[in-house]
């Protein structure tokens, strides 16, 4: 049994939503009087609600995290997973001391370095070398440490040629490489990493993941990793923590965590509040359900895949004026599939309330895929949502012989014959 290096006890964090500012002086005084003079609980924190984005709450206070308890042992690589708004970032912020908890405490053994963003504090006028020192110091390194590791950092970043050029002349890729290189060479016992790997080219992403693997496996340091990239989490982490609406939903080994997370994730999604959508909105996507062979089944490689859209069609627009496209990509943005109503002829004439897309055999290997959806009415964009929802595919018996093709071999599976002669 190895030693605990992080112990979190009854950790909660409340946020005030809505307007902050006007009329708060009197509330501040009231709060001060209640908590400091009378020693009571904060009167404005009483109406606690769980943090569920989609329903409107009664009070201005939301608990972004509520009563979280867990322990992390030395050398563990822990993946923190959860949907957007589940409290992952808040947890990281508390652990990295960017903001303080409302109640509860975190006990830490050793030095924590957190990478909530790469290149924090980079100054555009300074050269690469100067920025290595500055950024390193911000992340808590001493000057001596940085000097000792300078060659290693420059080498890892691969921008040696430009190291004495101001970073404002760098391409964004070079900038990120340099920034990650500094962070990767921190000598802290605990490393906290947010989704910083979403940047840089594929080769560099691999290098980063490799480096992080070395840190946790080779050097025995503790790594906390937050990502939506389940493949990366699975590769890197041994343990996991699943957060749901600010509460700890599961804590255990990483496979169990991922399947727990996927379960809660694979059925239906409200789209009516989706952000970043474009279009006139004459017909809108309201809800999407993704399922396998039938509505209660998960999506499995080699089985059926169904995507059911519920539409908001208040203008009574008939189906001959509507066109629907669905594109499916992987987490690196590689496009794998595109289907469109323009590829088929639809005969019946009605005002649609829902559209079902049925794929008789799903060629995706296990993994997470993202769908972009696009709808036009009379050739004018009506609703367009990029990365609207995820499709989580579990590994299945694609070749009907019980053998499973590892995800790293291929993301797409195809029927084949092999003839020896």
């Amino acid at each position: 049994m190895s030693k605990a290096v992080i112990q979190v006890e009854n950790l909660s964090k409340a946020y005030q939503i809505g307007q902050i500012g006007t009329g708060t002086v009197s509330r501040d005084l009231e709060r001060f009087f209640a908590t400091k003079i009378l020693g009571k609980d904060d009167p404005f924190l009483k109406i606690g609600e769980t943090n569920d984005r989609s329903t409107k709450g009664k009070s201005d206070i939301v608990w972004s995290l509520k009563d979280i308890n867990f322990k992390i042992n030395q050398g563990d690589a822990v993946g923190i997973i959860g949907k957007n708004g589940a409290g992952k970032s808040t947890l990281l912020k508390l652990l990295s001391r960017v903001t303080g908890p409302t109640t509860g405490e975190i006990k830490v053994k050793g030095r924590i370095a957190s990478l909530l963003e790469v290149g924090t504090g980079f100054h555009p006028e300074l050269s690469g070398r100067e920025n290595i020192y500055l950024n390193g110091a911000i992340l808590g390194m001493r000057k001596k440490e940085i000097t000792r590791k300078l060659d290693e950092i420059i080498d890892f970043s691969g921008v040696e040629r430009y190291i004495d050029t101001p970073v404002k002349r760098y391409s964004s890729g070079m900038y990120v490489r340099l920034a990650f290189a500094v962070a990767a060479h921190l000598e802290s016992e605990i490393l906290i990493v947010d989704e910083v790997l979403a940047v840089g080219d594929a080769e560099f992403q691999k290098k980063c993941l490799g480096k992080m693997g070395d840190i946790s496996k080779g050097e025995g340091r503790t790594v906390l990793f937050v990502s939506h990239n389940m493949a990366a989490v699975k590769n890197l982490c041994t343990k996991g923590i699943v957060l749901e609406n600010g509460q700890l939903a599961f804590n255990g080994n990483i496979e169990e965590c991922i399947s727990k997370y996927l379960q809660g994730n694979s059925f239906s999604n409200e789209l009516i509040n989706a952000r970043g959508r474009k279009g006139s909105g004459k017909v809108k996507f309201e809800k999407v359900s993704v399922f396998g062979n039938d509505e209660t089944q998960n999506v499995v490689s080699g089985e059926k895949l169904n995507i059911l859209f519920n539409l908001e069609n208040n203008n009574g627009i008939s189906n001959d004026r509507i066109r629907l496209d669905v594109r499916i990509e992987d987490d690196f943005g590689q496009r794998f599939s595109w289907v469109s109503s323009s590829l088929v002829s639809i005969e019946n004439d009605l005002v649609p309330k829902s559209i079902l897309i049925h794929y008789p055999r799903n060629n995706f290997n296990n993994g997470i895929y993202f769908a972009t959806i696009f709808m036009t009415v009379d050739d004018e964009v009506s609703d367009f949502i990029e990365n609207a929802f995820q499709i989580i595919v579990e590994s299945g018996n694609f070749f009907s012989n019980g053998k499973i093709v590892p995800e790293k071999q291929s993301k797409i599976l195809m029927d084949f014959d092999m003839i020896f002669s």
Partner: protein
Amino acid sequence: MRSTPETSDWDLVIKGHTSLFDLKFKDIWNYRDLLVMFVKRDFVSFYKQTILGPLWFFIQPIFTTIVFTFVFGNLAGISTDGLPQQLFYLTGITSWNYFSDCLTKTSTVFKDNASIFGKVYFPRLIMPLSIVVSNLVRFGVQLLLLLFMMLYFNFSPVKGSDFHITYAIVFFPFLVLLMALLGLGLGLIITAITTKYKDLTFLVTFGVQLLMYGTTVIYPLSAAPEKYKRIIELNPMTGIIEAFRYAFLGRGEFTFWSIGYSVIITLIVLLLGILIFNKTEKNFVDTI
């Protein structure tokens, strides 16, 4: 927190409510390299891609002195205690500038650094401290200008150019420290309050300008009308600037009472500033 052997095992305990007087000075010491780095960054980024570079440090006090000499010296005819007008104004401007730079720059620390504070932890006090030290570089350069002017007036005496450096010059470093700490303390209080109530930001810019007229920058304390003299003396910067002028030019009301008063006010303001700043830094990311 060393009450039980169990808790003393941990290097760090993050809690919602910490003691008001837990000021984490040890942490600040551990991050001293960062302070040096910030000072270097400020200095380098100031003159990079400018033609005149560090010369800009001279231009502002020179022009202010010229304008003050013209407006207050020649047009208004305000007394300069028998000192050459240029020297009189330049000593006032140099020291006042240091104080006001420390104050105005630290008063926006939370706002200016919200993005970096929101991403990574380091003792927040490092940032205002680095501002005070950066300004010291600028102050040093402006001081050279003052010394140069003194030399010039020494060798080409004009009418009434009767000035001399006094023994009080040994207190010079102490006076600088006092100005730095007073500016820092006030700045910390203001920046902490502005995270929630933004109104103060507007007050600071012209407040500092008005305060200059309430300090003996453009007139000597001896020339102040009797009924306002008490009020002007209440301003802790008055004692400091008078002492500064006495040290360099031999004129000004330098008493241990006035300096003692400034020291006490500075210490109170600084303590208050650090306490409020520390209280705010924990959660300001959520409100700014």
